[in-house]
């Protein structure tokens, strides 16, 4: 599903954010990318959804070389990915319904299909009673659940999550993890960046450890 070859990225001449990364992530896998702050976790995820261009190396997603992809093609790749962030990135002046609808509207889906899928996605994350609420009217955990609903509403082949539980309490973290597991059980490949070792211990999956931009460990606990 995802193949990364000799990937390097540096913002300044003398320090590399990522250095010669080689990875293969299979279809339907659930992978943690972990490591201390500044290890390159977020940079790696940004490369995967084409938010940034590497200095060197290739990334293949589902057989397509996304590093050589023309900028005009990137939106079409992103429609097959779901992305979840630590700060949720919901549009504050739109309701949850509108926020979750947006990825489908972008794809030009018909209105009745959008309504049906959005309701299903919000029901899956337990927010079906908050359709008309705005992000700032609900808790952080609920906002993250809405962000997950937005990511899953398009049935993505890959779900990328960058510290999705970083701002949440323990109980909410467990709820969010359950949602990721459900998505994974449905066949979505999940790549989750986290530095929460307790989370990895409680929900053991393949772990890729980054340090100073390099893969230092890759194991199944």
């Amino acid at each position, binding site marked *: 599903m995802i193949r990364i070859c000799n990937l390097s990225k540096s913002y300044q001449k003398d320090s590399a954010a990522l250095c010669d990364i080689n990875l293969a992530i299979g279809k339907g896998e659930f992978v943690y990318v972990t490591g201390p702050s500044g290890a390159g976790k977020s940079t790696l995820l940004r490369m995967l959804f084409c938010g940034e*261009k590497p200095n060197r190396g290739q990334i293949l997603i589902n057989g397509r070389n996304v590093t050589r992809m023309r900028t*005009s093609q990137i*939106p079409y790749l992103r429609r097959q990915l779901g992305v979840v962030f630590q700060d949720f990135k919901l549009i504050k002046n739109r309701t949850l319904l509108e926020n979750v609808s*947006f990825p489908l509207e*972008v*794809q030009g889906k018909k209105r009745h299909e959008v309504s049906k899928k959005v309701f299903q996605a919000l029901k899956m994350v337990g927010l079906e009673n908050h359709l008309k609420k705005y992000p700032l009217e609900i808790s952080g955990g609920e906002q993250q659940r809405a962000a997950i609903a*937005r990511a899953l509403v398009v049935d993505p082949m890959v779900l990328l999550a960058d510290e999705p539980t970083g701002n949440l309490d323990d109980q909410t973290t467990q709820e969010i993890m359950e949602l990721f597991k459900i998505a994974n059980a449905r066949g979505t490949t999940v790549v989750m960046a986290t530095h929460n070792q307790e989370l990895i211990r409680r929900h053991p999956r393949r772990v890729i450890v980054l340090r100073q931009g390099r893969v230092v460990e890759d194991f199944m606990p």
Partner: protein
Amino acid sequence: MLQNPLLCIAAVGTMAVSLTIVAFFGVLFFNFEELTTSWSRRIQIKTYLEKVPEEQALKDWRQQIESYPEVDSVLYVSREEAFERFRKRLGQNSDLLQGMNPSILPASLEIGLKEGYRHRKGVEAVVAKLKRNPHFSDMRFGREWLERFDSFVMLLKFSAAILGGFLLFATIFIVANTIKLTLYARREELEVMSLVGGTPAFIKMPYVIEGAAEGFLGGFLALAASYLIFSLFLEKSLVSLLLTMGVGQVSFLPPPFQLGLLVAGTALGILGSMTSLRKFVRIRYQ
């Protein structure tokens, strides 16, 4: 627009104020231009004839002069007409002319020029052509007045170009920056749209339409505000000023300029949005 009413009001308000200043300047410019046009109508060349011409000769001369591209009209003033005009001009002192007959004054041709030639160069070009005819020996065209008029028109155009250019630049700058600020406040929204797979065109289109609507509204408000200012304050003071200079009435912006203001507002809104969006909507960073 409905989702961000405050930002929208700020953008429309800024555009309206900026365009009102442009419209206000336009009102002044058009009225002063009207003044110069009115003055320029007085520009004419008088050529005095030594002898009263025969009818056929007069007809030929008129035809010849009227064929010049600069010439608008040719009027023959006979000795009798000249004498009558002189009498009228003397008014109460017209009895000074008692015992005199019209032969003391020469007949003349009064040559009016087309609008684009009512300046020193235009006059001199016609005079040069007239001089080829030996019968037109004595020509008057108020050289000094013409030079002063030319300088005044030049000054007016120069001031208009400098001030107008400055105003236009300031308006573009203010409008572009206001739109940039409104989009800056919504950059997260733009980022999210890009992350979920929106193409640049799909993301930008609503904002460009919004910019166009704000620009049109700003232009309309500017037009309304400048009309209000014109009819409440400017009209009276301009009338009293221009009446002393020979212009009978003042007018608001001509309809093409009114339309131009709306178009300019809309275009500014579109251009401002497009340039700012180019900065904020980035699919991939290097």
